[in-house]
């Protein structure tokens, strides 16, 4: 693969004069002859290599050690008991907004329990829970504008829920019925909504990351005061796509927030086997982009960080990296049994000692916005809402067989039209063999 490229590079090197006149190079490297001249006479000469922002020369050989710097601190606003730690960091959200956040987090938690069980009962084929990561979803989503474009990985149901995706819509997608906006095309949890600017989830890991940089480029060109938000995990950050996404977002100066949910595991791979550095936030510096690490179980910390990141992204048109530290309490998916690689005690610790939902509840109680009675009534109500949506979705018809042929191309090609007609005739002729009553009819 290298041979042609090397040839091209060689050809380029033959023509230095052609390139030296290009303004783009000069604009990124302001190299002034007079300042360079002056340097000659100064005692402390500074390196002028174009590829580095070097502070000076080093007279003794010294490597930068991976442990040379202290780890990156984790930003938080709330203590585990739900107390505001620094008054000036309080986002000062009003009661309605905070209760709405809490309700979104708990509704998702309830929905997860029911859909997880329904998969175990064989009612749906697959599911992924969001247990323990509710704070990263709702905290970030609440700080965004509804017009911001979301490129998710697959465990961001709370973001979509906050944006207004209804319980019915979640259920319809998981059941793949005729009401599913995705027409039953995808595995459960591969949600998408053009209306809510949430791009359809795609299974291959990290492909959304360079796509987010590309979409941010489109936003930049459109000149809108919007940004792209790209969610990914500690495992996805190891994919080559992640490098391309971060590097190109930085060099293109595009408004995108890379939001890493560092939940400790990529399926079974723990973070200490995933990377040797200080998490994902430490990589931001290398790419020349703003980065911050936050406590993902502190919904206010996530909110503040995302809001500030959004400001930077839009006002300065540049990428920002947020690493939200959290813990995946559930299994990776219903295809995984995490007891094979982690202890029950470890999971129990996060579930009982450091859960984003209980932390926010503690805060709400300290404000007298919430109490045991309200909690009890809400848990009954939300379970009822989820069950109703669940039952409705289960009873709905399956999509029309016509959908088998639609949407592969913008207009259905002749060959597919012929196949469609053939299938229609066939099903009509042998109708006693087909359960047509559970499907929407063919469209003409």
């Amino acid at each position, binding site marked *: 693969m290298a041979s*042609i490229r090397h040839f091209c590079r060689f050809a380029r090197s033959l023509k230095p004069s052609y390139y030296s006149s290009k303004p783009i190079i000069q604009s990124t490297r302001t190299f002034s002859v007079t300042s360079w001249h002056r340097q000659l006479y100064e005692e402390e000469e500074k390196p002028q290599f174009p590829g580095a922002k070097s502070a000076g020369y080093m007279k003794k050989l010294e490597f930068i050690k991976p442990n040379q710097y202290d780890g990156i601190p984790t930003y938080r606003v709330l203590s585990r008991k739900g107390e505001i730690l620094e008054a000036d960091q309080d986002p000062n959200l009003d009661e309605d907004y905070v209760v709405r956040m809490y309700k979104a987090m708990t509704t998702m938690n309830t929905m997860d329990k029911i859909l997880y069980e329904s998969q175990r009962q064989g009612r749906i084929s697959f599911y992924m829970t969001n247990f323990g990561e509710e704070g990263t979803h709702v905290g970030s989503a609440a700080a965004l504008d509804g017009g911001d*474009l979301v490129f998710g990985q697959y465990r961001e149901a709370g973001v979509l829920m906050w944006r207004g995706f209804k319980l019915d819509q979640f259920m319809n997608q998981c059941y793949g019925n005729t009401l599913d906006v995705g027409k039953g095309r995808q595995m459960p949890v591969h949600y998408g909504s053009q209306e809510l600017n949430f791009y359809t989830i795609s299974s291959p890991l990290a492909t959304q990351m360079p*796509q987010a940089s590309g979409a941010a480029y489109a936003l930049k060109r459109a000149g809108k005061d919007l940004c792209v938000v790209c969610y990914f995990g500690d495992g996805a950050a190891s994919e080559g796509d992640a490098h391309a996404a971060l590097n190109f977002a930085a060099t293109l100066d595009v408004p995108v927030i890379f939001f890493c949910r560092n939940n400790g595991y990529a399926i079974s791979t723990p973070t200490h086997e995933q990377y040797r550095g200080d998490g994902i936030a430490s990589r931001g510096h290398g790419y020349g982009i703003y980065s911050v690490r936050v406590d993902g179980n502190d919904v206010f910390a996530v909110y503040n960080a995302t809001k500030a990141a959004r400001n930077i992204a839009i006002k300065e048109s540049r990428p920002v990296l947020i690493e939200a530290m959290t813990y995946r309490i559930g299994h990776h998916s219903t295809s995984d049994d995490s007891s094979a690689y982690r202890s029950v005690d470890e999971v129990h610790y996060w579930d009982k000692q450091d859960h984003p939902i209980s932390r926010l509840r503690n805060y709400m109680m300290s404000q007298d916005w919430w109490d045991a009675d309200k909690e009890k009534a809400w848990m009954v109500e939300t379970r009822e809402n989820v069950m109703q949506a669940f039952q409705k979705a289960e009873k709905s018809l399956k999509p029309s067989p016509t959908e088998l042929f639609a949407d592969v191309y913008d207009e259905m090609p002749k060959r597919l039209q012929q196949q469609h007609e053939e299938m229609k005739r066939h099903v009509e002729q042998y109708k006693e063999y087909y359960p047509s009553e559970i499907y929407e009819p063919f469209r003409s």
Partner: protein
Amino acid sequence: MMAAIRTVQLSRNVFSKAVFGRNFSLSVPVSAQMTVRDALNSALDEEIDRDERVFLLGEEVAMYDGAYKISRGLWRKWGDKRIIDTPITEMGFAGIAVGAAMAGLRPVCEFMTFNFSMQAIDQVINSAAKTLYMSAGQVQVPIVFRGPNGAAAGVAAQHSQCFAAWYSHCPGLKVVSPYSAEDARGLLKSAIRDPNPVVVLENELMYGHSFEVSDGILSPDFLIPIGKAKVEREGSNITLVSHSKHVGICLDVAKELNEDGISCEVINLRSIRPLDFDTIKESVKKTHHLISVEGGWPQSGVGAEILACLSESDAFDYLDSPAVRLTGADVPMPYAATLEQTSLPQSHNIVGAVKRVLGIQ
């Protein structure tokens, strides 16, 4: 071989070329000459001009004018906003193009050669080709992946392969493979305007070839419908169906055999997917013989698809002898020039096959 019968006129400046053509056409319709390179360059230039959303990205496409100079002058004309140099990561910039397309732009993503597209094939197939379907029609990915495809010269195993069969295998993609300057202009312009992801398979060895182009072809509105083949030469004894560079070899062979009284019909597929099988079928019903010619490998290749379609169709009964595939040899491309040459179908292979199929000694 094919160069021998064509007037090769290397034109380096497409813009003056186009103007030239118009000036001359005022009285007598004299055709201008245009290289495939200039045809692609002018198509890109016009579509970038026509639609604000269109932009080109790829390795070295801007300042360096593209590794094969297809984007010559475009960066100087259109600037950083429309012509973007990317870091060397095919998977990354293909993904960036897919994301930009999802968000409403119309990227043209250049692979320095299609061999490198293998690095990005997940983005091309799992994201670009399937997103419309997977999002239930909500998210369109209007994107063009283009670059040189197939064997070049002396670049050995990893740089000499045809991706026509690979990409045409996948529903959700459209795949075109231009032969002439006319094809290159019309198909690239149609690809850029198409709402679906389209793979445009060019051929490096054809970039410098000149073809006659009429005023119609030079018109900014000139389009070639994707999914339609072109009968390049009519004939009555046998059908030769091919795409890309090998169309030219088939035309040379047809001319040569004509002197022996054998009349070959030559079909230029233009599109690999959708495949215009109707044109092939009608031709076979007339000639009763078929040979497919391509540079790609035999197994599950373009020729294999054509012959399978033929055996499934009513035209099968019109065949007077078994249809035949001529393909690249079923080996990684050798580096040695002589072996490289014999690994690809050449004139004498086609002549031999025609005589065999027709039962002529």
